[in-house]
């Protein structure tokens, strides 16, 4: 008999961290191998399932950073520490840190796109000597949408870090709870900072670009314009997923199943995918 991949297991919510009104990080009990960029199917009986990227990991737990947008995610926000969630996974390929070692690493991430690369940044933050250089550009809609503020402060010590927002909030920052202790930030799209990235050799880089489809498109365009080789770029795709295991068909593009073959793709492969 084959293993039943569809039945979820119970996972305890160990900690809940609120970033913004709509985005929380849930620390959930989990024992097993997992990579940044992989995802879990998180489920709440009677509301359904949703694929959510691993935003962090450690001994006996994984972290999932969830944006409240619909049926399942709304309901998850009603749950707190001590409660349980159902999960299955991890699925997908994820990022392989081995691919980036001894390179000049550049990570450009927008919005919730920071979640899947957070584990990669954490890894090289702790093992900084394994890459030659490290530049991280994170972009958010406005100051009140900034995620992972504490991390952004910590990471600053051994990498080049740029935090940027598309525009200032419409309301003054002091009325907005989560913008009180924001690290220094700039205003402008992530693409503006690409020409200023300093590397010794453009061919010796590894570049991860994750975010909304438009952001990924323009970021990659900007990188190519600056002369970075396209073989050095990795992207992560997001598609509708119902099963996460190559059966339901929803995530298929051309001959690729995003849930099995991705969600992380070398750009040279990912760019050829036409829905």
């Amino acid at each position, binding site marked *: *008999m*084959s*293993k*039943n*991949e*569809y*039945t*979820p297991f*119970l996972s305890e919510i160990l900690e809940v961290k609120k970033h913004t009104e709509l985005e929380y990080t849930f620390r959930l009990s989990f024992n097993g191998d997992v990579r940044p960029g992989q995802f879990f199917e998180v*489920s709440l*009986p*009677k*509301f*359904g*399932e*949703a694929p959510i990227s691993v935003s962090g990991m450690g001994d006996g737990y994984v972290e999932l950073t969830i944006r409240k*947008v*619909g049926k399942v*995610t709304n309901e998850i926000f009603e749950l707190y520490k001590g409660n*349980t969630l*159902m999960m299955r996974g991890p699925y997908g390929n994820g990022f392989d840190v081995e691919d980036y070692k001894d390179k000049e690493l550049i990570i450009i991430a927008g919005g919730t796109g920071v979640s899947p690369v957070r584990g990669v940044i954490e890894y090289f933050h702790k093992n900084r000597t394994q890459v030659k250089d490290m530049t991280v550009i994170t972009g958010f809609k406005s100051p009140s949408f900034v995620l992972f503020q504490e991390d952004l402060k910590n990471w600053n010590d051994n990498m080049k870090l740029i935090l940027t927002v598309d525009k200032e909030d419409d309301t003054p920052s002091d009325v907005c709870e989560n913008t009180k202790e924001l690290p220094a930030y700039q205003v402008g799209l992530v693409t503006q900072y690409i020409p200023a990235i300093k590397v010794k050799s453009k061919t010796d880089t590894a570049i991860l670009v994750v975010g909304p*489809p438009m952001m990924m498109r323009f970021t990659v365009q900007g990188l190519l314009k600056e002369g970075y080789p396209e073989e050095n770029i990795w992207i992560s795709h*997001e*598609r*509708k997923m*119902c*099963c996460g*295991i*190559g*059966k*339901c*068909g*929803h995530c*298929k593009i*051309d*001959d690729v*199943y995003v*849930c*099995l073959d991705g969600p992380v793709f070398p750009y040279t492969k990912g760019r*050829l995918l*036409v*829905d």
Partner: protein
Amino acid sequence: MGYLLNENNFNDVIQEWQKDYLIYAPKKMLGEGMYSDTDITRYAAINDISEIEWEKKSDFSFKEVLLPLSETLFYYTEGTVKEAEANRKSGAVIFLRSCDLHAVKRLDEIYLRNGYEDFYYQRLRANVRFLVIGCSATYDNCFCVSMGTNHIDSYDAGLTINDGLFHINSHWEEMNPLFSRCSQKEAEVVIPFVTSNQINVKVPENLSIAVNSASLWKEYDSRCINCGRCNFVCPTCTCFTMQDIFYTDNGKAGERRRVHASCMVDGYTDMAGGGSYRKKNGDRMRFKVMHKVYDYKKRNGYHMCVGCGRCDDVCPEYISFSHCVNRLEDAMKEVTGNE
């Protein structure tokens, strides 16, 4: 081995099989067709050989026997999950045509080999036997010859009717004594397969995703009404959507199901936040056609479409899949600018 059985003999065999198997075959359902007063031929469990529709092509395929339209995966109450039992615990014998047995290979490819082996499929697939009904003549819209699915030997038994007798060619060793006991006589049996259809399709050698930008797809924007019927009747379509159901009398208990889905129907690609892909029906037509005759092969080495023609039979807008495939050659010329 070959055996000749009359109807009573065959019913004796069926009765014997029923101890271990449910018998599925195409059956005429009166008045259940697409238009009022039309009949429909679809698969159902039978008890007697006379229930089988031998003449007409089945409107729906056998696939619901292996992939129920709606399948409960598990039941839940607060904090607990209980795996649903299979809707069929015995084995199954399925009467089907050559193209459809070729389609089984496609279902197996996705459900047993593409990533994890699927628990629910595997348990319904485990003890299934296939009886292939020979085809002496082609039906409307069939193009199995072009797809290379007109012939098959890998059946448990082959079957053809001659002079009122059922001629059976058995590869099912274990059943040979039964066939022998129930037969009028033993003889060499050759199962007929068609060697030509009225419709031929040609998938261009140079087909590539460049064809995505060809103009033909736009025609389907308005012609196709995205009803999804072409997917639901297709023996090789395997997509599903998850659904959580909860029982109103006890809000905490319910079940999770998977139900057949169609890439032609609205909502198939919807993402949270309102994003979706392939909004136009022409883009959906392209996605379906390219999957059937291009990208599935790129991944698995052989075409997905088995040429059964059911999608053409069922389309309320008279859209022909085979005609569309035959237009790909010109479409490739258009996009590559040759000639």
